[in-house]
């Protein structure tokens, strides 16, 4: 069992700072998802945990032991690299079993584990190929396989499913989650896919510009975003943030029941009908199961998620409504109020 702790970890490259004093605690056997916009420092965090980068300041503690100076090999981790880092001259099979043969595992057991992993990832027919003969998604699965086969106590995954189709992805998520539970792995998982973050994580860590913006369970992040950044980042389409002008929606005389500088409402919390706050549909985006309407109130616009089967046209006048519990208030700095 392996817990992971980052204490005041920062990372600079010359002037450029990728991480500013990050503090983080990942419980042993939990599934932690790192989330955040592109370039916010997710991979860097992962690489520091792995021991591939040395933090400029701060400590990395795994299982209570300070491992900041320890080489990766001694940390008992497995990793899926964002860029795969497959060995180009080795076959898929050899890539996957690389770590096993490093540890001198008997060939028979290697073969067995390879078989299992390959089946899990649907790579059975490709074991003799070289990475250059694989499709992008297949390469990614090999990278995943290499990390999974080791069954290391800590598994770091950097967008391991980003190049897979939705279906396979769905399957993989389930398999990963099962595996993690079954083996009691501590997983640190980077993804930009919110559904993934929401459905898999025990803990979501939201990074922004090298700082931890919010850390908590998926529900917490969704239900009580700590800042406008968190509010906008989680949820597709994102939470609507409406500027308030002394309690009214800016540019209108609609009074809302909260104070602060802005009001947040999730598109899916808004019911669309004929009554409620009057708004004008400006734009319709069709998404299959549902559709997203852009509606204007005063000088502000709100996105509203509606059933995909419903018919709606730009220019239509509609009424919007949401429950008080679904309204979030933020102050001028974007921090949550209360």
């Amino acid at each position, binding site marked *: 069992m392996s817990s992971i702790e980052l204490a005041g970890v920062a990372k600079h490259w010359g002037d450029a700072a990728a991480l500013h004093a990050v503090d983080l605690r990942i419980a042993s056997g939990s599934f932690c998802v790192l989330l955040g916009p592109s370039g916010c420092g997710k991979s860097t965090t992962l690489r520091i945990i*792995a*021991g*591939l980068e040395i933090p400029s300041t701060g400590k990395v503690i795994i299982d209570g032991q300070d491992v900041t100076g320890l*080489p*990766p*090999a*001694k940390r008992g*981790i*497995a*990793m899926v*690299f964002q*860029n795969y*880092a*497959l*060995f*180009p*001259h*080795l076959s898929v099979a050899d890539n996957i079993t*690389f*770590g096993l043969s*490093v*540890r001198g595992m008997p060939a028979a057991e290697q073969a067995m584990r390879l078989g299992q992993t390959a089946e899990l990832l649907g790579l059975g027919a490709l074991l003799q190929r070289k990475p*250059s003969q694989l499709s992008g998604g297949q390469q990614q699965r090999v990278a995943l396989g*290499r990390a999974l086969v*080791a069954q290391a106590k800590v598994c770091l995954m950097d967008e391991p499913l980003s190049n897979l189709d939705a279906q396979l992805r769905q399957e993989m998520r389930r398999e990963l989650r099962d595996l993690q539970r079954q083996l009691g792995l501590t997983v640190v998982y980077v993804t930009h896919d919110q559904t993934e973050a929401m459905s898999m994580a025990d803990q979501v860590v939201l990074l922004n510009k090298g700082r931890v913006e919010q850390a908590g369970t998926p529900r917490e992040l969704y239900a009580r975003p700590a800042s406008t950044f968190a509010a906008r980042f989680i949820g597709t389409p994102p939470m609507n943030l409406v500027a308030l002008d002394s309690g009214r929606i800016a540019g209108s005389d609609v009074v809302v029941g909260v104070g602060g500088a802005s009001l947040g409402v999730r598109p899916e919390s808004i019911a669309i009908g004929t009554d409620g706050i009057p708004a004008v549909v400006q734009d319709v985006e069709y998404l299959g199961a549902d559709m997203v309407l852009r509606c204007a109130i005063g000088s502000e616009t709100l996105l509203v998620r509606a059933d995909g089967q419903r018919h709606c046209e730009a220019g239509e006048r509609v009424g919007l409504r949401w429950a008080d519990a679904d309204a979030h208030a933020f102050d001028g700095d974007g921090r949550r109020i209360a």
Partner: protein
Amino acid sequence: MTSGSHPSRQAVHAWLMLLPALVLLVAFTHWPAVSTLVDSFFSTPKGARPSVWAGLENYEVMAGDPVFWKAVRNNLAFAAATIPFSIGLALAMALWVNERIAGRAFLRMAYFTPTVLPMIAVANIWLFFYTPQYGLLEQITGALGLPSHNWLGSPATALGAVTVVAIWKEAGFFMIFYLAALQTMNPSLREAAAIEGASRWYFFRRVQWPLLMPTTLFVLVNAFINAFRMVDHLFVLTRGGPDNASTLLLYHLYEVGFSFWDTGYAAAITVVLIVVLAGIALFQFFVLDKKTHYQ
């Protein structure tokens, strides 16, 4: 070329790119080489006696020339020692100075000195190292209480002494190519291997070594050829002596060509040398090239 354009146009482009180099190669290498081949079937012209068709006579002379065979034997021993040692050392050196080792710039320069220093001068310095009584080697062995030895002057050690100099020179030379190749290697592979817990040795064996194959192929072919064409230091160190104990093929060829001025015979040796070398080197190349992973 993977992509599109018409095969024959491709070929034209390729030949155009080769043309300048090939023209010069033909003019200054192949053409003279062919004339050497022709010469080898003629007797050596000597003043009043013009050269006449001699058929295989020069080759027969070679077959019966004990110095030639001695040189062949010496050269095989020389090659057997220089090729593996110089490649092995070059690789070790390159691996070291590729990494953040203490004093890297100095180490790089130290290993590269054999290539920078002119061989004539260097051979004289080695001569001092090997000199009996007060040579460097003697000063060291003397300090250790070992008996004095005439390294270059006794048949048992002359070839070995010459071989050491060759290894010294070659290893530093090849090091630079391995170093360059290592620098183009993808650093994430090292990271992946580090994560998997691979030791440096394991990483070398399973990843670096196979990925260095293009360079190794290059180095191997060159080491092999150099083993048969490195002679500069012989001129100063032993001149093939004592009693041909350290004669190598090319040195023998020089003697025949530029001391004896027996151009016909020299041509015959040249032809045999080139044909054998080319045969083996091209075989090495075309066999290993297929097995080499390039990207």
